[in-house]
Structures are given as C-alpha cells and as structure tokens.
C-alpha cells in the first residue's frame, strides 16, 4: 500500500514536470547569409481569409513560431501579429510671421528681418505684430515615452556682416538695453492640447510684448534646448520664439548683418 502511494506520487510528479517542460519554448535562431529567423517555433494551421467585407487572420496549433527578416522582407511565422497600434511618431513645423495670432501657418523660407537697427532703441518681435519683425513659431507633436525637445543652433553665434565677417552684433544672455549691442532670442507664448511645453533656460527669462523689456538667451553654434515637453508625450504643441537686437554707437555700419537659426526636434522613444 505504501509502495503504491509512493508510486502514484512519483508518477504525479513526473506528469506535472512533463507538463511544464512541454510548455517551455526552446528558442534558437535560424540563420543564413541573407536572413535570420529569431526564436522560431513550428506550428500547424493558421491562415488568412478575406472578402469584400471582412478579413480573417487565423492561427492553428502553433508549436513553432518566430520572426524572420532580410533587407527586403519581414515575416511573422505561426502566431497572430498586430502592428504596434501606437508606433513612434513626431511631427515638427516652423512658421514665421508678424501678426498677433498664434496659429498662423507659413511656408519656407522662414525669416526674421529686424530692419534698420538704431542705438536709440531695441528692435525685436512683439506679440502685437502689425509690421514689427516676424516672430518664430513651431508646432510639435511627439509620442515618445521620454518626451521631446526643441533645440536651436546659430550659424555664427552672432549677427555677422556678410561682407566683413569680423564685424558682428554679439549674442549674450542678458537683458536687452538700447545702446548696448546684443542679439538673442527668448521663449514666449506656448500651448499644448495634451502634455506640456516648457521653456528652457537661458531662454526662459522675461520675454513678452516689448523688446526693450526682454531678457534674451545667447545663441551659440552648439545646439541648445529652448523648449522641452517635460519628459512626456505631447500633442498640439505650439511654441513662440522672439528675436531681439540692439546696437551701440560704434556698431560698424553694414547692410548685411545676418544669422541662420536651425531648429531641431528630437523625441526619446
């Protein structure tokens, strides 16, 4: 009787073990010089059927399955595969205009013409628009789990004369002041549908309706973050960037001061 009891316990244990063993898939890549089948398992059954009004994807008793790909194809063997319903996405667009609206769209080339500068006043973008220099706007949507950033790079790190590159209106992080040569940008209005759009130092200081009241951040030839989404996805992001410049009595006279600002949007997926 005891022997029988022991026997059935062992037999039970064996079948339990066998059950779990057969549940473990064994993965081994199948490779050749032109493709790799990763973690394949073999199965039977499955298929695809369709008509004008339906599609049916079916799978049978899959004991083998896997993903195979090459430079020209990819396939998913032996199991039901659904594309990522929320694939990585990011859209980014620039606009430049000088009206008071916040959602105007424009097309390239994008420009900000500061016009004739004077030591008597700071020249720059204002919220009211109406003939003042263009402001810079961007639209941003990104679903990266790590959020997104918008960076800015200046081609010269200053407003440089094309004819005499040594003559510049320098760029420094500072409060704008008439008669003190300076050129820079600041982050102003921002909005989102979902998520947040944060201004980032040194562009996050006083920035609003009056150029002479703005504190700008210096533009440099290295990328600097001007806005971020706080490490999370964003939809309907809309951000404004204002441009200011001032000169002194001794800023060399030229008609060809210029700079090119390059904006880049990067999301972390």
């Amino acid at each position, binding site marked *: 009787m005891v*022997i*029988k009891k*022991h*026997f059935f316990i*062992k037999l039970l*244990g*064996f079948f339990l*073990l066998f059950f779990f*063993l057969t549940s*473990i*898939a*064994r*993965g081994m890549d199948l490779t050749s010089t032109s493709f790799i089948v990763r*973690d394949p398992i073999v199965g039977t059954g499955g298929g695809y059927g369709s008509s004008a009004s339906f599609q049916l994807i079916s799978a049978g008793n899959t004991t083998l399955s896997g993903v195979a*790909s090459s*430079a020209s194809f990819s396939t998913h063997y032996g199991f039901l595969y659904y594309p990522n319903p929320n694939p*990585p*996405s*990011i859209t*980014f*667009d*620039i606009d*430049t205009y000088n009206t008071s609206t916040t959602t105007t769209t424009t097309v*390239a*080339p*994008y*420009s*900000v*013409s500061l*016009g*004739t*500068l*004077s030591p008597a006043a700071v*020249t720059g973008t204002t919220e009211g628009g109406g003939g003042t220099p263009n402001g*810079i706007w961007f639209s941003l949507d990104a679903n990266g789990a790590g959020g997104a950033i918008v960076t800015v*790079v200046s081609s010269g790190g200053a*407003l440089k004369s094309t004819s005499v590159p040594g*003559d510049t*209106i320098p760029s420094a992080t500072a409060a704008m002041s008439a008669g003190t040569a300076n050129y820079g940008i600041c982050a102003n209005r921002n909005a989102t549908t979902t998520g947040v759009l944060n201004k980032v130092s040194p562009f996050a200081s006083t920035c609003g309706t009056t150029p002479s009241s703005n504190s700008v951040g210096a533009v440099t030839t290295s990328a600097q973050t001007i806005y971020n989404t706080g490490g999370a996805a964003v939809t309907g992001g809309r951000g404004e960037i204002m441009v200011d410049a001032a000169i*002194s*009595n*001794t*800023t*060399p*006279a*030229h*008609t*060809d*001061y*210029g*700079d*090119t*600002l*390059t*904006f*880049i*949007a*990067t*999301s972390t*997926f």
Partner: protein
Amino acid sequence: MIKKFRESAFSSFVSSITIISLVMIMSGIWQVANAASLTSITDTMTSQTQNTFSKHTIKFTSTSAIASSGTIVLAFPAGYTTTGLVIGDLSICHGTSTGLEVGAGAACTSNTETIAATNGANTVWGATITGTTTITFTAPTTWAAPVSAGFKVTVIINDNSHFKNPNSVTTLNTTITTTSDSGSFTVPIADSTLVGVTANVTQTISFDLDTSIAGGTSGAPYSVALGTLTSGAVNHSDASTINMIVINGGTNAPGGISVTVQNANGANGLASTSTPADKIASATATMAAGTANYGICVDSSGSLTGFTAQGTYATATPCTTASSTNHVVGLTTTPAAIVATTAPVSGALAKVFVNAAIVASQPAHTDYSDTLTFLATGTF
C-alpha cells in the same frame, strides 16, 4: 513478489526520469526564448530640412547584453539618399552612463576601438552597409569591453555629405535590432527648420569744432586770437587767454574717421590782409622766442581721446599749453591728416594748440590772419 518487483522497478524508473528532467532544466539545456525592447532611443540630427544633409547621433539603452560578435542593425527606411556612405563615416560608442565612454570614433571619450569591414579580436568592430540604408555593426570577437545589460550605445553617422534627407515633408521610422532586443525611432522632415535673421546698421558720422580757452564747447564762428606778438615771447594756446581748437568726432564707419587741416595761406602762414607780402611764415619747427614761425600741434599731454595723431603731428612733441617751445607743424593749402581713427568710435576728442612768434624786425600790422579749414571723412 514479481508484482512487487514490477511496481518497485516502475517507481524507480519514474523517479529517475524526474531527477534527470530536473537536472536538465536546471543546467539550462532547455532555455526559455526571450526578446526585449530597446529603450531611450533618440536620433539627434543636425538638419531636419528636406533635401539636405544631416549628421545623425543615435542613442539607445540596450536592455540585454551585447556579447562578443553580437550585432546591431540599423534599418533606415527608404527615402534617405546615402550615396558615398562608407564605414569611415560611422562611429560607435558605448558605456554605462553616457554611451560615449569607449568605442570607435572621435566622439567616444576613449577612442580605443576601431571599425573595419569585418570584426576582429578585442576592439575591432565589423560594419557593413547593405542596400542603401541598412547598417550592421558586429561587435569584436573576444570583446574587451562588451555591452552589458542596461548599457547605453551611441551610433553616429558623421559625415554631412553622405546621408541626405528625403526631398519631401515626411516622418521616417528607423528600426534598431540587436542580438536580443529591438526598437525604433522616428524623425520629422520639414520643408525647412532654418530661420534666416537679417538686420542692417545705417552709416553715421559726427564732427564738431570748438574754440575755447580750456577746451569746452562753443558755437560758430570759431576763432583763435593770438593777441599782440613780440619778439620776446611765443604766443600760443595757453588755457588762460588764448583759445585752443577742439576737434570732436564719432562714427560707425568700419574704417573709422579721418580729420584733415589746411590753411588759406599755405607756407605764408599769418599774412597781413592790408599788405599780403608781409607774413609770419609757417614751417615745421620748434617754436622759439625771436624766431618767426606760425604753426599748430596736437596736444601731447594726454587729452587725446579715441583719435590718433597722424603724420608729422604724431611726432610734433612737445605740444602743451604750458610750453613756449612746442614743436609745431607747418601748414599747407592742401589737406593734411591731423587726427584719425581706424575703427568706429564714439566721443573722440583732440585738442589743437596754435603757436606764433616773430622777429624784432617783423613789419608792424594789426591784421595778420589765417583761416584753418578742418574736414572729417568716414571710411565706410
């Protein structure tokens, strides 16, 4: 008895099978297949404008380890133009913190690995470019510094002239597949993400003269009355009774401002209006009582601001309000540069002293005079 033996034998068989199976599982002979997602994937570009070249700095965190001869495959989508892309355009770095600690390429903090067509021992990555857009890295064999789980990896496409954005507004998704993990990232391509900023600065120049005892401001007409000359003294701008001439200037001319002076009588200097032949000549010389001469000099006592004395005026020293032996410059009817700047200047100032002396036999007249004309020119 036989029955008991059979039961015992079967029981032993089951026990044996169970034990053997346990051992096989624990030894890892049957392994569970596993794949994970790469995380924190970014591609930092240098241009997102359509139809332009861009550098790509692609970073990701490897969830699983990448061992010797492990692979990292970047499959860029169609649309990029990669004419001329070679493995020499690539860098790959990896590490626990920044993903740049060690690797192959200038961007790596420790650039001790290399990239070749085929991977090799210790530090040699293999890299291949298949089709136009698939880049495969193969880790070194017997890798000295393999990527552990959780390490960061950075792949850089360095060259800005071999990887061109599509010529359309779009979004591009690139997949990354390592030996064990996979992931993807997306970048936007816009009509342009460049903003051109322009400005201009109008030319300005300011120039003003003053004649005063101490160098203060005055209005026209400007004059210097040297008074009654005697052979026993030199009359000169003296900050007490005889005016000096003050030149004020400013400009944003990139080449600065230049001031010239000329006189009406040239070398004849101070000439009598009633008897023009009677004159106190003007010559470059050191003034001396009893020696006839008339000329001007630029103050050398430190009042010169912004300006630099030019030509002979730069060496005509001393020149002070207290000296009767100033070294003066002879005047001419053609403009001669007296002071100048070579760059934009604001508030430039120069004091000019007028000097005259006579001999005992100087013809007596009450109308010796000359007219000095100063002109300012900006170099734009």
